[in-house]
């Protein structure tokens, strides 16, 4: 590249100037920000053999999923920080007003006794699940090879904290109507010991401890999150109607908006992976094959504990598989 003696100002960042399209706000603030991708020998500006450089070289640079130019990935929702807050402030206003109105009408007092028991066993312990997936998403963020992928993972992690928050709120609220049911105190024990949560805890602990980036992102976005939506939230929502719980379906409905957005970026990621490198398909498949049995077992155990579940474990497993087919574009 010759040194330009008559260099002119550009209309945008130099890395976007070659595009014919006028850059969007999304492009300007999201694209091509991971400087740690520039030097393969030392991702971070420290000794090539420093512990963190070794971690990134092993788990990110040498990860089996490959792409010539990860920065071509764009969030299909084109979310930026500013619009994320707009979106979620709107959703939270909605949820807050649900909480407000249902409380006003003494919703919780009208719950069926069996369902209250089910909430303590099946719903309030979910804050551990949401939080674990929040943690997993922050890992996907910090190891992702493109800032555009990282940003999707950041917002996804925040969405899961949002679910933690809803659950904490409802847990406290239930404890005020049912002070002797263990709400707010027994959840850790249920999560750690109850049979219906153990396969899910096994999945989640093992997933969290999987540090290769390909493995982390594929297991989380193709397997664990579909399990959460299809094998936990939807069955819970369906079952709650029988227990006179009319708040739950509306709350979960709002959370599923986030799930759908997570599926959209996973779908886009898959498209980008296949467009660049054929070998990626087999890599994805291998990871999916490894994690699906754990997720299926988790759904099976969880749903079998839902009293008279309108959604069977097999339905949920099939629905999660359908989500995966949507993500991978398989017929």
């Amino acid at each position, binding site marked *: 590249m010759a040194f330009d003696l008559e260099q002119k*100002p550009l209309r945008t960042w*130099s890395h976007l100037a070659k595009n014919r399209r006028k850059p969007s706000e999304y492009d300007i603030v999201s694209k091509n920000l991971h400087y740690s991708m520039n030097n393969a020998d030392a991702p971070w500006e*420290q000794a090539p053999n420093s512990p*963190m450089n070794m971690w990134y070289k092993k788990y990110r640079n040498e990860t089996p999923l490959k792409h010539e130019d990860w920065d071509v990935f764009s969030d299909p929702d084109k979310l930026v920080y500013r619009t994320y807050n707009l979106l979620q402030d709107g959703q939270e206003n909605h949820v807050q007003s649900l909480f407000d109105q249902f409380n006003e009408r003494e919703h919780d007092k009208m719950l069926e006794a069996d369902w209250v028991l089910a909430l303590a066993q099946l719903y309030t312990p979910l804050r551990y699940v949401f939080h674990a997936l929040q943690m997993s998403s*922050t*890992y996907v963020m*910090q190891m992702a090879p493109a800032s555009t992928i990282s940003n999707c993972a950041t917002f996804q992690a925040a969405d899961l904290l949002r679910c933690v928050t809803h659950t904490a709120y409802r847990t406290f609220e239930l404890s005020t109507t049912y002070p002797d049911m263990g709400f707010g105190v027994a959840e850790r024990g249920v999560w750690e010991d109850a049979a219906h949560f153990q396969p899910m805890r096994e999945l989640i602990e093992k997933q969290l401890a999987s540090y290769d980036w390909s493995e982390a992102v594929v297991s989380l976005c193709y397997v664990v999150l579909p399990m959460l939506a299809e094998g936990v939230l939807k069955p819970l929502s369906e079952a709650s109607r029988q227990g006179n719980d009319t708040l739950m379906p509306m709350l979960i409905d709002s959370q599923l908006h986030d799930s759908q957005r997570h599926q959209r970026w996973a779908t886009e990621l898959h498209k980008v992976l296949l467009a660049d490198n054929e070998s990626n398909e087999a890599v994805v498949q291998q990871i999916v094959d490894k994690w699906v049995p754990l997720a299926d077992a988790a759904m099976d155990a969880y749903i079998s504990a839902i009293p008279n579940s309108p959604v069977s474990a097999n339905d949920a497993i099939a629905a999660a598989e359908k989500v995966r087919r949507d993500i991978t574009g398989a017929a």
Partner: protein
Amino acid sequence: MAIHQRNDWYDLTRATNWTPSYVTEDELFPDEMSGSMGIPMESWEVYDEPYKTTFPEYVKVQREKDAGAYSVKAALERAKIIEKSDPGWVTILKQHYGAIALGEYAAVTGEARMSRFSKAPGNRNMAMFGMLDETRHGQIQLYFPHEYCKTDRQFDWAWKAYHQNDWASIAAKHFFDDIITGRDAISVAIMLTFGFETGFTNMQFLGLAADAADAGDYTFANLISSIQTDESRHAQQGGPALEILIANGKKEEAQLKVDMAVWRAWRLFAILTGPAMDYYTPLEHRGNSFKEFMHEWIVGQFERSLIDLGLDKPWYWDTFMEELDSTHHGYHLGVWYWRPTIWWNPAAGVTPDERAWLEEKYPGWNARWGQCWDVITENLIADKEELTLPETLPLVCNMNQLPIVGTPGEEHWDIKVHTIEKDGRLFHFSNEVDKWVFEQDPQRYEQHMSIVDRFLNGDIQPMNLQGALEYMGMEGVAELGKDAHGYAWIEKVKANMKKAS
């Protein structure tokens, strides 16, 4: 009551530690990422963040903040701040955005390190908000300068600087990767949030905001003070982590990390904020001097927060106090002299009135740095610009990656280079503190090559200044730094000389 108060349910949002049994605690929180110093999970559960917020509160408040910052920008779009401001002010914008925007974005990764790997549930949640905050800071500080691209090629460096091997880029990355992206969760809590954000971000985001408002750049003043409201919240993650370390007998380890981070932060801010405040900001818009800001934000406040936690002042505090009078003057001289190697146009800031201000704020300035500027000034008056320009690279420190500068004295420069020789390689340091930092962690620092090492290794071709400029990412002449005022200040010097004679 229909809506429950946050206080009633907040603790449940952070009752999220459980005992793993399908993997070990170490597999879930590997030491190299977690940095918990052997303190088990349950001991971290007492972590209590002093500033509490929740998801619905966060998105509401932040939505409003952004509405404010973006609407000020939109309202003042026609103010033509670039065309109308003094070039010294414009250079502050270029320097700031280039040195800060992608560093802010990298801080998302540092926050994510805590959010995933801290054993303290409260820390993990607060760091989630920290990730969002730093996403905001990265994005908004790309969005705002972007519209200036069309005015000047140097504004491309707002996005570009961290992708380059410019010496200033290397120095910024070497520091930020050491306290943000390249460390375990607890080190990030201590070094980034406590060591750096508690004090130093105030310097850049509040100190500079005062000057910006005075200079009429309300968009920038409003932007950076809005950023600081986030910083002052998420900076509070380090304190409770330090309390846990101290309670578990790890005071010495914690102190070491604080001492390293503060020294490193000082070096970078001495070259970044020091010249901006005392030389680039037009004289009539200067509030406090850099030294006065440092006393207010670092010496006063930071010292207090250290003592409150039961930590000690860093061992080098006396050296630090002495450097407040000198280091950034040397850095400024170096940056101005090596101006083609940077993406901003340094204002010399040495007209007679400015020198009088410097002498007042830093008694003895004329006798020391003034004499060097005399030589530069004489050369420029005599039309010998070439004598004020570099032909080679400066000697840089293997710790802070910045030029090694001394203080000019009456007879000689008191420039004393501290060195270590190891396995046939010679390492140079700015002073004994930088050398000390280096010695604390050889595995992290030793195999890193400074820009001068790279030059001597033949990585930079051709081996001359032009080769070096291209290696640093300069693609053309419009990107090279120049004197901000095109030497117009020389006329004021001449006028003054005429008056005197």
